[in-house]
């Protein structure tokens, strides 16, 4: 690095794709010898807290931040992010999947570049399904899922029909439950921002969820998040798992997974009401408005989210491991089409609609979240109630009642309702 070299600090989440990128930096350095990158790798919740705090107080500790689709519109609106509309031609902005790109655009300005996108889907064990004498349709219903779970459960051998998220957190159990509730016709708020947990639809959602987990789920489910479930599934303890599409590459990777060759995929279940129980999410790279190293930061964002990067990963680690869900061109690539979960991932992403997530109309944007600043706290608090219900500490009714009350309280405090 020469005398003119610039050092940028990149905050990332500790997931596999991001970590893989850290191993591929030689390519970036070769192209940008005058830039050095410092990594700050944090667990999701900590990351979110740290970057939000930094961007809101203009702390200036980071030059590039990894943020979710939840943050981008809120931050963009507040002018906390640099616009990325001036990306060079070669970046090919139009290649981004519209559903993803729309979520990152506020009033015509693109505020973050998607690193990977995901939805959720059903992953299941083909061998167990076969043994149970069932066949998974491409678009199953919730009742089929229940039936299959019952059929696959074999507690004696530590095989649990279904693994779902139970750990409290708006990005953990509430991501799943909110998405699930959409397919039940439930919603967080009505058009007057009145919380809806006292609705029939929510009661059905929660009761079904609890019944599934209590009867066919693994023990300790109230502490399970994405990672815990992944470990369970990889070790062959789950019959089905409904979770992020990115998980597909892990469960089919023979190095880590003992069931790599016995996994099938299906769309998230529905209840025949229209919406399916899947979500839409992307991890994106954004540049905080305060940074003094705009050019270097942009160069990095461009590199990390480019088609070339995808090709680089494919070359080094195979197509199954490229960051999915951001570009049309990837799904048009014949080599990628050979990847077993490619089709289902794309379909899942296309099946989600952040602007109209549920049956009834809502005043907010977001499939598995509500894009208002208060949602992090709200989602987590409600998530804790549901997690307590799952742990058997309170009843479902009690959990819903608590959720309703605390949401009302917070919305009142925040001034949405009188």
């Amino acid at each position, binding site marked *: 690095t020469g005398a003119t070299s610039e050092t940028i600090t990149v905050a990332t989440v500790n997931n596999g794709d991001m970590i893989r990128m850290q191993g591929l930096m030689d390519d970036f350095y070769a192209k940008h010898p005058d830039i050095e990158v410092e990594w700050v790798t944090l667990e999701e*919740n900590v990351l979110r807290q740290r970057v939000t705090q930094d961007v809101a107080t203009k702390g200036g500790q980071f030059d590039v931040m990894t943020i979710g689709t939840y943050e981008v519109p809120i931050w963009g609106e507040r002018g906390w992010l640099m616009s990325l509309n001036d990306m060079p031609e070669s970046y090919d902005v139009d290649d981004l999947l519209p559903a993803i790109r729309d979520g990152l655009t506020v009033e015509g300005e693109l505020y973050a570049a998607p690193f990977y996108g995901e939805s959720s889907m059903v992953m299941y064990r083909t061998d167990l399904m076969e043994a149970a004498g069932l066949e998974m349709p491409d678009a199953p219903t919730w009742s089929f899922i229940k039936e299959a779970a019952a059929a696959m459960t074999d507690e004696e051998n530590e095989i649990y029909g279904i693994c779902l998220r139970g750990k*409290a957190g708006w990005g953990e159990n509430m991501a799943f439950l909110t998405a699930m509730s959409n397919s039940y016709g439930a919603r967080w708020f009505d058009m007057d921002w009145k919380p809806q947990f006292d609705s029939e639809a929510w009661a059905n959602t929660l009761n079904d969820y609890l019944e599934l987990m209590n009867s066919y789920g*693994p*023990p300790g489910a*109230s502490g399970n998040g994405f990672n815990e479930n992944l470990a369970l599934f990889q070790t062959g303890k789950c019959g089905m798992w409904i979770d992020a599409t990115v998980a597909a590459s892990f469960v089919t990777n023979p190095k880590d997974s003992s069931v790599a060759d016995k996994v099938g995929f299906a769309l998230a279940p529905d209840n025949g009401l229209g919406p399916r129980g899947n979500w839409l999410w992307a991890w994106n790279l954004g540049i905080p408005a305060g940074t003094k190293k705009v050019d270097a930061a942009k160069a990095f964002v461009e590199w990390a989210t480019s088609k070339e990067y995808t090709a680089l990963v494919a070359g080094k680690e195979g197509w199954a491991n490229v960051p999915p869900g951001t570009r049309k061109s990837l799904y048009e690539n014949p080599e990628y089409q050979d990847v077993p979960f490619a089709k289902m991932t794309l379909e899942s992403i296309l099946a989600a609609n952040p602007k109209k997530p549920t049956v009834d109309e809502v005043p907010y944007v977001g499939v598995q979240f509500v894009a208002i600043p208060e949602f992090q*706290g709200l989602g987590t608090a409600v998530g*804790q109630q549901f997690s*307590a219900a*799952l*742990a058997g500490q309170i009843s479902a009714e009690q959990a819903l009642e608590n959720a309703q009350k605390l949401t009302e309280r917070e919305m009142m405090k925040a001034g949405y309702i009188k």
Partner: protein
Amino acid sequence: MATKHSRMSARLMISPAVLLLLGWMLIPLSMTLYFSFLRYNLLMPGMEEFTGLTNYRYFLTDPAFFAALWNTIALVLGVLAVTVVGGILLALLLDQPFFGQGIVRILVIAPFFVMPTVSALVWKNMFMNPVNGLFAHAAKALGLQPFDFLSSAPLASIIGIVSWQWLPFATLILLTALQSLDQEQLEASEMDGAPWIKRFWYIMLPHLARSITVVILIQTIFLLSVFAEILVTTNGGPGTASTNLTYLIYMQSLLQFDVGGGSAGGVVAIILANIVAIFLMRMIGKNLDA
């Protein structure tokens, strides 16, 4: 010792420490106090406005507040009970002659050096995990249903983890104290016809009183702000079953970025901590003078 000159130097020499700590306390404290009267969310800059006691009203009427208060007390008392009783028993054991005393002492001390985050991670994943954890393996080997520690008994599990970290500290101090007990006192009581258990009760335990007080004081200071262990293991849940005050404030100010509400919580916590402090200081003051 007590000439005017030395008194003056003394005042001069203590002032850096006092002024620094005063600054460390007063500057953030006054800012916190100020924020606590504002409607102030980090995510909504420019909308700060004075709201009087609203933040306090919301914080104090939050059902989670009482749960957190209770959990804080339970956590502190639980860990204290385990570490003090366990520490005394361990100190008694380590005070006996046996082979390899030095090595065993090293083994017993070790948890004290482990970062809270690391210990929480290790306990949570490798021991208490109901599927892959070692306890689950053990339970299954015995033909029992694995117990789901962190969701069925979250607070107790955290108490266990924290106790594991603090047990060495209590043991060390109590062991030193035990070894400082005048042997002649023990011999005198033996001559006086006291059997072992009475010697322990009437002679050793009173001798340890002062050290126990110190252990309680120091540990309370650290236990009131236990945070990493909760964040890593249970995130305060399920529900609010393992949320303590520190964690509650964390949720307010750093998850919801409600600086106003969090500050109000901070002020409440500071007041409560000071009540505990006064209580403790009284106790320790009495015991340390004697």
